């Protein structure tokens, strides 16, 4: 006799429920082996690229290092300088993250600082935040350049544009000369030796003027060929090797630098 439908049904019901229960139990048992833990590898990070201390302020430039295929696009954030306690928001200029802080007196005495912060942005379309802490050396940038030159009646006026973090004393001048830009070149004047003219500039951005009476009075080896521009020449170069004394709180540092400027003068008169 064939088994009754009821018996078949009962048998299959019990079997299938048993299979279901074993599967549920088995799944729970094997779960720890089935799952993978994944984390980002070669993920982007932030590095402090440079800290430039200038008379106009401190510029901290942060670099986004994209190691792999993940591309991080910065949109904002903030940095804190641990030594000075300054906290400032960053600005993004053409994908470069820059923080600008005001110059405070502590900066002049520091060699390196710790910078921490968070840069927010977009990682492959998802909002992301990168936290970082870096210790980076400080570059103090003092710039002194010639802004303008004029020469008339044996008086040389040199306007210097001074951008320094500390007060400076500019001078003396060693072996300066003014000559034409031509082949051959002609000297207007040249000095051999030291010209003890100095000018003081406070910290920050300033223009100062050096006025030098160019005449044999300056020294034995001063050769003045003309008290005005040479007629027929409009392009001149000024060589101005000069000493600059930076007045750091830790002591004065004197360095020598060559300032040059090639200028086109409007030729008038002459002699």
């Amino acid at each position: 006799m064939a088994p009754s439908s009821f018996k078949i049904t009962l048998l299959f019901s019990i079997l299938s429920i048993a299979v279901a229960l074993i599967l549920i139990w088995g799944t729970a048992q094997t779960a720890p082996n089935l799952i993978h833990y994944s984390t980002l590898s070669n993920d982007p990070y932030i590095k402090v690229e440079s800290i430039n201390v200038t008379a106009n302020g401190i510029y901290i430039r942060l670099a986004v290092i994209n190691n792999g295929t993940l591309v991080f696009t910065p949109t904002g954030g903030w940095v804190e300088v641990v030594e000075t306690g300054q906290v400032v928001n960053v600005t993004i200029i053409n994908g470069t993250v820059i923080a600008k802080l005001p110059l405070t007196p502590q900066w002049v005495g520091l060699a390196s600082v710790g910078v921490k912060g968070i840069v927010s942005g977009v990682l492959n379309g998802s909002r992301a935040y990168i936290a970082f802490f870096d210790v980076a050396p400080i570059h103090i940038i003092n710039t002194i350049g010639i802004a303008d030159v004029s020469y008339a009646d044996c008086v040389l006026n040199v306007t210097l544009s001074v951008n320094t973090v500390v007060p400076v004393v500019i001078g003396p001048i060693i072996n300066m000369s003014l000559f034409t830009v031509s082949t051959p070149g002609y000297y207007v004047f040249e000095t051999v030796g030291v010209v003890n003219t100095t000018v003081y500039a406070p910290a920050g951005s300033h223009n100062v003027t050096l006025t030098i009476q160019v005449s044999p009075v300056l020294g034995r080896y001063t050769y003045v060929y003309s008290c005005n521009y040479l007629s027929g020449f409009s392009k001149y170069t000024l060589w101005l090797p000069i000493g600059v004394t930076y007045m750091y709180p830790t002591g004065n540092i004197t360095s020598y630098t060559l300032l040059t400027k090639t200028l086109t003068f409007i030729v008038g008169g002459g002699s």
Partner: protein
Amino acid sequence: MRVEALLQFALAIAFIVLWVFMPAWSISGANYSISLTPWGYVVRFFGETHVIPPPTVYAVWLFALDVGLLPLVWRRSRYSLYLAALFSVLSLSMLMDTILFQQRYLQFHGYTIAPTPNGYIYVSLPTKPVLGLPTYILLALTILSIFNMITRARWLGTGPEDPIVAVVHVLKALNIEYSRIEHGVEVGGVRIVRQGGSLWLVRGGEATEVDLKTAITEAVKVGLKKPVSVGVVDYGED
């Protein structure tokens, strides 16, 4: 083969085929997503793809396939509908259990944190849970199979059953030869005729009013005088 059972089969196949192409359950987001496919959870994470196959996921579609096939393969007894309904519930339970597996072992909080050489990176990965179309089809399949079980897969035939049709069913089941006549059925020399609301048994010249039970008994009595072979009525047997 009953249309109701074919419909059940069609739904089961639709569920499995559709599931191959769209997830039954997913946690979707930009750089992180989990999709439940017939072969397991497919996890995407920043271009990486992993397949996590919890064993219960195979039971989901194996049971669903049974729900569709069983009423077609085993048509003799209504118990096949009962078993199919049980399988549909088991299939749904397995799906629930598989979703619970995700909630328990593949839980995702919507962010990831990774170390960097001088700090860490936090990536916000918001996700949205979505119940896919295949799940709704499985739900419909379960409801249909239970409905088929209750109605013995006879809900498409409308109205109360004609007593003559009932007699014919019995004769068919027993493979008794009969012929349909106007308002009735004829077996051997006996006619069963429906007139108004009552049944009449016509034997020779005399007609007696009978109830359905007697009519069937008399028809079978006459019919069984002939050789009997085995026939089948879908889900007729108790």
